């Protein structure tokens, strides 16, 4: 029977927890910064942006939580989102309510694929990758996996922090040459080597203490790279922990705080470039309007997206509010969708990144009837 080194096994455990996030980047022409944050697991929109002014609210959720942060009377922001509330007050946060993607499924995995595909069916590429391709940029993924959002025609290069000893450059070259004929391994090694060079330089000078809180640290890295004069212009991050089937009041606070601190960290790291930044925070679907039997919520339909950044015209809530009283819920269980998430994304891609109207059809195929939301930035 074999033995394991106690020391190495214990040391190793510290790395196991570093899983639920990733960062992907892309180069693009111009000075505008665009960041997409995917909240995997389905954030409960009615808990993040609480519609306590609706007369139907109490029957579904009871009394609104204490300490809500006011968003103009009808809505209140969850108390864990104090940083976002500051952005709201300075006109840099635009919550979008009763929003949903173009699909009506309640499976996380299907819905995330559709959300990232930008369509009501699964595609082999993501809408952000197609955007990058259309505006002449190049995608760059950070972390050990590339999200579907950034897979596609714009070839993805990749980088992540690591703690392993590196072999000499000529051994890397020999390995790359030996395996270049493998259609999967060959391009991956070539891209990985290329990107380590660039990204390591861009991150120099950062301190380790930023790693105490993982998502804010990731956001700081993203912000530092986006702020660099020759750095990438587009980033995609993801944060998990939103699938609150039980004890939601307790479980939701942690992810919300991470999100809040992450967005504040992103703004700080971007510095002056924040003025040219728009961020879209989105999730695969909302959750049931009623609490379930275990103090949680199950998979639903419409929810909340956040648009934020120095370039954003915020300080208001964007919603065609469908109501949540008797007879108004979708399938008598979920907040009804009244805004298509693609309208929000299109509004940002056209007005902020200058994506042409013709390219929109490639980025969001089959969505001609969904017009871009106007006045999100500027």
């Amino acid at each position, binding site marked *: 029977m074999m033995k394991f080194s106690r020391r190495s096994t214990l040391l190793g455990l510290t790395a196991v927890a570093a899983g639920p996030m990733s960062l992907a980047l892309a180069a693009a022409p111009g000075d505008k910064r665009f960041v997409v944050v995917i909240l995997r697991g389905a954030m409960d929109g009615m808990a993040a942006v609480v519609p306590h002014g609706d007369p139907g609210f109490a029957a579904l959720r009871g009394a609104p939580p204490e300490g809500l942060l006011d968003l103009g009377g009808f809505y209140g922001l969850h108390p864990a989102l104090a940083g976002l509330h500051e952005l709201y007050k300075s006109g840099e946060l635009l919550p979008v309510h009763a929003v949903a993607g173009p699909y009506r499924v309640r499976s996380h995995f299907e819905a995330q694929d559709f959300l990232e595909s930008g369509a009501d069916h699964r595609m082999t590429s993501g809408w952000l990758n197609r955007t990058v391709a259309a505006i002449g940029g190049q995608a760059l993924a950070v972390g050990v996996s590339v999200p579907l959002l950034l897979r596609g025609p714009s070839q993805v290069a990749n980088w992540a922090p690591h703690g392993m000893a590196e072999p000499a450059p000529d051994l890397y070259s020999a390995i790359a040459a030996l395996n270049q004929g493998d259609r999967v391994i060959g391009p991956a090694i070539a891209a990985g080597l290329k990107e*380590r060079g660039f990204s390591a330089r861009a991150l120099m000078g950062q301190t380790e203490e930023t790693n105490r809180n993982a998502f804010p640290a990731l956001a700081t890295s993203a912000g530092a790279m986006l702020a660099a004069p020759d750095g990438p212009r587009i980033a995609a991050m993801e944060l998990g922990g939103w699938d609150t089937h039980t004890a939601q009041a307790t479980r939701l606070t942690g992810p919300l705080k991470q999100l809040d601190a992450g967005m504040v960290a992103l703004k700080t790291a971007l510095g002056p470039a924040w003025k040219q930044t728009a961020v879209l925070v989105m999730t695969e679907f909302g959750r049931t309007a009623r609490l379930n039997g275990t103090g949680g919520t199950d998979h639903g339909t419409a929810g909340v997206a956040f648009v934020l950044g120095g370039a954003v015209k915020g300080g208001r809530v964007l919603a065609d509010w469908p109501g949540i009283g008797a007879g108004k819920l979708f399938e008598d269980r979920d907040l009804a969708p009244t805004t298509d998430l693609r309208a929000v994304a299109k509004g940002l891609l056209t007005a902020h990144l200058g994506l042409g109207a013709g390219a929109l059809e490639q980025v969001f195929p089959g969505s001609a009837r969904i017009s871009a939301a106007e006045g999100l930035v500027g």
Partner: protein
Amino acid sequence: MDTRSIHALVRFGLGRRGDEPLPTDPNAWLLGQLRASDPPRIEPVPTAASGLAALRDDRANKPEPGKSKARGLFVAQAAGELGHALTTAAPFRERLVWFWTNHFTVSLRRGECTGVACAFIEEAIRPHVTGRFSDMLLAVMRHPAMLLYLDNARSVGPNSPAAQNGKRGLNENLARECLELHTVSPAAGYTQADVTALARILTGWSIELQNEPPGFVFRPRAHEPGEQRFMGKTVPPGEEGGIAALQFLANHPATHRFLATKLVRHFVADDPASADISRIEAALRDTKGDLGAAATALVGLESAWQPGTKLRTPREFVIAAIRALDPPEDRRPITLGLLGALGEPFMSAPAPNGWPAKAADWAAPEAMIRRIDWANGFAGRLGARDPVEIADIALGPLLRAATLDAMRRAGSRRDAFTLMLTSAEFQRR
């Protein structure tokens, strides 16, 4: 050396261990593993009872993060599982254990599962990998790890006595994933009403920490009273109703199709041929879900003997590398942290659909560079052995002339071993 002999170890097993003898009849060697019982394992074998007792103690004592009893159990048991993979003489069985464990994912992302995660492998999966799927499904759905992971332990029928205080009610998480991920899949066309009905049927399937030993209990007071209409059938109330519903799902044609697709995708090709899927599907249908028959049918697929179509996952890669170079016990560098750094932390998949099966999901550029870095570090620990000889033993006819040439021209033994381990023919299976 016969290509089929080494391929049998690579495709269906965990790679050749050192210079272990190659099977003269690869088919017989594989099928023999399906007939034999499991080889002896590290003692003590993990149990749900000990894991739940640890969870109970942790809840009472509230230890600091990382110092819980459940964590200690998991670390020791995970070392046992990984160590078993390094040395087992029945690697096809072990791969089946890994496959089914991933099919029925439980994850440490839900902290309560920590102490029972390895027990889940040993109690719900391993005894059934060549048995009936319906038996495995039942063992999984009654296992404390799954009941905790997908919240069923706390689910209460809305009209049950336990719900009358208004504090608790239905949770449909387990029911939904059972349909979507474990059995019929969305192809069966079930509805939200079926999800809710199955959730009600499974109310009362719970755990009791205060029992000695702690474990599964059926709670009649939490069970939803009355019959349920579920996928066109009427299911009676009671624990028996849940067992009947799971039997129905286990033997559903859509389940056979779904399992067949996943098996062929895992073992044979990222994009399986429909004729291959149909062969496995037929084996499951004709034997009422005999997983040993399905595994036998996999071995019988002609396409399964086409080398190198699949990319090893990080865990498969590390285990195969250590088996190939077969260092002494104290120099086998497998740790939980390593698997995390390479992107596949042990028993910690991000979501209930488990780890992905396709090469593209594992071939992110940084992930590939990390494999190189790890291989180079590992190769640096090996003594004065002949890399070319070892590459020939490990890969035989699969070894490309170009790799052999690059190894011969390498500046050091370490570099030569790194070239071997990172070569496409070693990273594929």
